[in-house]
């Protein structure tokens, strides 16, 4: 079961002697791709990114080349902005932290290339403030890069100017949503905007065309410039190209962050091979494969997945949970998502009511409160779950939870509605009997596994 990592972005992370200083980065070939990219020119970089079939690493998996193609620098009448979304907040995800703290120049190089490719002169790096000195790491890296001519006026004498500023968030998950982030950067409450008409590519930051990309996505651009889009697209699987940073947490022996070709590893290989299996000799009960918003998968589940066979015909294939490939399409086919790459594992001692109550508490706390279904519905979900966890469940609660969740998903301004509803819909769907049993045993339950922390 020895699956070896393919480290592209994490190549130097945790390598002995590797530091976040620019000197070290340069020793390892840093900013060579910036030189290459400047020589290639903006449209060539855009072409390579399109060819690479890179999909965004923040959660939605939207093709980066397509996102960029919504903006035409040659026709723009207003300045174009790029924002790096370093607000890493999806529970279960801790990949961007590694890049920011341990290899910030890689991010900067990818970001400068992306800005150059899209005619951006002013970019912001929106970092969550809980990375309490991440912003200092980045500001220092920016100063170093400016001093060396990689950033600022007339970058490497190419005539291209770019300023990047670090902007700290202040503890709001909703700032991960790109239009919420834009509002926050404009100095407002992070209320996501309605789309239409406020698509960032058209009416983004300061109502100008804006690209918002995740940290990992921007790092990938550097490697695409290095390898060429076609070569990059050969890593991973069709439509699921490149490597993927996976973060594993919860009840495994070796939690941590890993990098594999996208879809190059199965969920079973990840949990039992790479992460050493379930800790304390327990068995797997449930796993959330793409950050806490993703729908939960139950141990023993078998999924019907549509796949192309060798002749290119679509065929149904039954896939066991353990055999699910960790890529966008396979996890979507299993009814969940690859999301942000955060894999949260729960063993067979875990009480699903407690786990779900914990998750719903997160969403109730993080709802921005702008639109009705989310503002009212998500807190309601949390209150019901907290009540069940405290031993006051009602027989009607599972049905009510499902109804409330169904009336949130698909009806809100932004995807937060789905993020809050999917866990409830999937836990209720897949662990209904356990939840009903918990309700029947109200108050007489065995020792409570208090992880709901609904406070």
């Amino acid at each position: 079961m020895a699956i070896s990592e393919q480290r592209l972005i994490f190549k130097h992370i945790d390598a002995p002697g590797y530091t976040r200083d620019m000197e070290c980065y340069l020793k390892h070939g840093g900013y060579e791709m910036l030189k290459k990219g400047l020589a290639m020119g903006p449209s060539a970089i855009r072409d390579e990114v399109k060819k690479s079939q890179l999909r965004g690493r923040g959660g939605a998996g939207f093709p980066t080349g397509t996102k960029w193609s919504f903006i035409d620098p040659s026709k723009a009448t207003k300045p174009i902005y790029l924002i790096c979304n370093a607000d890493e907040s999806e529970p279960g995800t801790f990949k961007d932290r590694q890049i920011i703290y341990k290899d910030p120049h890689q991010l900067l190089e990818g970001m400068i290339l992306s800005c150059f490719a899209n005619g951006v002169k002013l970019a912001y790096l929106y970092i969550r403030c809980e990375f309490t000195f991440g912003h200092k790491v980045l500001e220092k890296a920016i100063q170093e890069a400016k001093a060396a001519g990689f950033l600022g006026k007339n970058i490497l004498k190419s005539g291209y100017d770019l300023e990047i500023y670090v902007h700290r968030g202040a503890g709001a998950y909703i700032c991960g949503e790109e239009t919420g982030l834009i509002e926050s950067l404009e100095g407002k409450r992070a209320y996501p905007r309605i789309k239409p008409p406020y698509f960032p590519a058209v009416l983004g930051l300061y109502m100008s065309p804006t690209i918002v990309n995740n940290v990992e996505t921007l790092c990938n651009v550097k490697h695409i410039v290095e390898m060429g889009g076609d070569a990059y697209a050969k890593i991973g699987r069709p439509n699921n190209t490149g490597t993927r940073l996976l973060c594993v947490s919860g009840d495994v022996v070796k939690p941590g962050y890993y990098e594999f070709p996208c879809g190059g590893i199965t969920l079973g290989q990840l949990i039992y091979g790479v992460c050493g299996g379930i800790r304390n000799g327990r068995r797997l009960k449930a796993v959330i494969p793409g950050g806490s918003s993703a729908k939960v998968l139950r141990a023993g589940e078998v999924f019907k997945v549509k796949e192309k066979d060798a002749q290119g015909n679509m065929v149904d294939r039954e896939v066991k949970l353990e055999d699910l490939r960790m890529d966008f399409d396979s996890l979507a086919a299993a009814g969940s998502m690859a999301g942000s790459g955060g894999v949260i594992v729960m063993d067979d001692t875990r009480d699903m009511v407690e786990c779900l109550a914990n998750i719903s508490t997160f969403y109730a706390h993080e709802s921005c409160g702008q639109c009705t279904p989310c503002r009212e519905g998500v807190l309601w979900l949390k209150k019901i779950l907290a009540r069940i966890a405290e031993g006051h469940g009602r027989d009607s609660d599972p049905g009510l939870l499902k109804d409330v969740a169904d009336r949130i998903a698909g009806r809100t301004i932004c995807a937060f509605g789905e993020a809050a509803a999917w866990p409830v819909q999937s836990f209720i769907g897949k662990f209904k009997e356990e939840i009903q049993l918990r309700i029947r045993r109200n108050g007489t339950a065995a020792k409570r596994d208090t992880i709901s922390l609904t406070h």
Partner: protein
Amino acid sequence: MSTPLRAGTENCASPEKGEISSEMEKQADELVTRYPVSKRSAVLPLLHLWQETFGYIGPRGVEWIAKRLSLQEIQVLELVTFYPWFRQRPYGKFHFRVCRTLPCALGGAGKTFAALQKLMNLKADGHEGAMVSEDGRFSLEYSECLASCGTAPVILRNDEFYEKVDEKKASELVAGCK
């Protein structure tokens, strides 16, 4: 060897009093220049600056920022109350944030929190946000995901980040508050 960066800038306990230094004014001006299109964008940076200087954001901070950015006070207060990092009253000299989100909860964040609460002798006081010890030395609150789920449970003590904080490590961290 990487150049060391000082992590601890968070000032939790100061009263919102004292002089606004020319250094602070200069910093504020510099922050505003980062937003050439709209200085309203500088509200969050200035709120951080104020909280790091004065410990929390009271009316004085709100009004100072509003005036500096030509905004109405309500436009600043809207943000102070939206973003949980900001506080409107002084916290303890040592402020602990315990991540409560699922991976940390699975890793025992509840026990860590309970241990800290006991060590600090804190009681829920009906306030929103953190519990603060009577002597103003400690404060404690749950935080949502701190993005280090692989080393759960994790906490922040002021600006310092700690991983795998079990009950034993929690007591060491409290003991280490000097």
